[in-house]
């Protein structure tokens, strides 16, 4: 089974037989040599970001709000979809 994957504008057909779980249109996948090897749940992206923030809080005693410059936050918000 295959799916068409959009790599930031470049569309490629990718095989799904190695994927860890069923995918649906709109899912993110981790691709390696033309095979999807992981469906990336959107909540896991958030977990990774929270992990960084936790590390920084422990190391600096500051909250995550102190770390993000407003302009960068704007850039990220603009690109979020």
């Amino acid at each position, binding site marked *: 089974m295959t799916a068409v994957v959009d790599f930031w504008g470049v569309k490629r057909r990718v095989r799904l037989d190695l994927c860890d779980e069923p995918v649906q249109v709109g899912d993110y996948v981790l691709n390696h*040599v033309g*095979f999807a090897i*992981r469906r*990336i749940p959107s909540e896991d992206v958030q977990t990774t970001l929270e992990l*960084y923030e936790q*590390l920084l809080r422990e190391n*600096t005693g500051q909250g995550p709000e102190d770390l993000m410059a407003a302009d960068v936050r704007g850039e990220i918000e603009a*690109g*979020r*979809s």
Partner: protein
Amino acid sequence: MNPLEFRDPARARELSEALERTVSAIGRNPVSVMHVCGSHEQAIARFGLRATLPRALNVIMGPGCPVCITDMPEIDEGVALALQGVRVATYGDMIRVPGSAGSLADARAAGARVDVVYSVAQAVELARQSSEEVVFFGTGFETTAVATAAVLLDNPPANFSVLSAHKFIPPVMEIVSEMPDTRVEGFLAAGHAATITGSGIFEPFVARHHIPVVVAGFEPLDILAALLCLVEMIRDKRAEVANMFPRCVTREGNRNAQEQLWKVFRPIGGRWRGIAHIPNGNLRLRDEFAHVDARKRFTIDVNALWHRAPSTLVRQCICGNIMAGIASPSDCPLFGRECVPDQPVGACMVSSEGTCRIWHQYGGVPDLRAPATDGCLRCVPTPEGGMA
């Protein structure tokens, strides 16, 4: 999901400062950690991370470039097959790696049929579209081995077979951590490979060697956060497995891919180019797949290559020491002189994941603070690095 979130310069700066504090607290110089993935070296070089790392933190590139650790006799098998008239398909960089008497590119120049493919699935397509024998020269670690396994389990055409030079990463970490000259205090493990195997595969290693392992992704923040996690464990003398790439890696890994991998392959001992004999480090096809095993299907006459004169420069190449983490490209007398990307002597200069190639392209440790006084090249991170 926006990849910029993982390149946020403000967070990168905070992580770098936290790294500096933590490495200072350890109080030793250098604190040496190793990554075992060409993609990590690419990210570290491309985003100029080495310039932002603490001076006392030595991040060594280990045997993580799949092209580089493919052993010469394995390349010779591919070259010999091609020169025997069999059509050989393989991943891009592989065709330029010198064997003991020339590369697959040399064989192609001499009239052999050699195809570069992006995916093993394309090699299967080549076989479907023709009646001639097509051999896929399979290189790389568990991430590419699973793809090879998947096509072999999916009824490939009868004229398709595989010459497996696939390698398995966890066993080489055991060998490298025992090398007396290397003294690695912690490992960054590759997020892609761990997506397949799971972070749990490193637990026995950590228990045996008391060396922490952190699974890391490939964006600048992934790497900086993983390094911070690693040096914190070194500071606290904790040896654990940490997963800093949870958006892709779980403790158990991708069970579906693992099943396919081990159904097709079995681990055996074998040499990794320039490193050592690695017990269980090579992946060979199981007997049930003998019919698609190029080593069983063809008589590969490697001896026929021996009348070709090997390059004398190869003997001066120190790729092995570079991959073992005990030498840098700048220690090699050939680096940037006789050995350049257009005319590589060693495998590390061929692959876009090779240490020498990456250092040649981006500079090794770009020094952004001091002017050049020793005649060395200085490089500036590319604008997309965003590490200002």
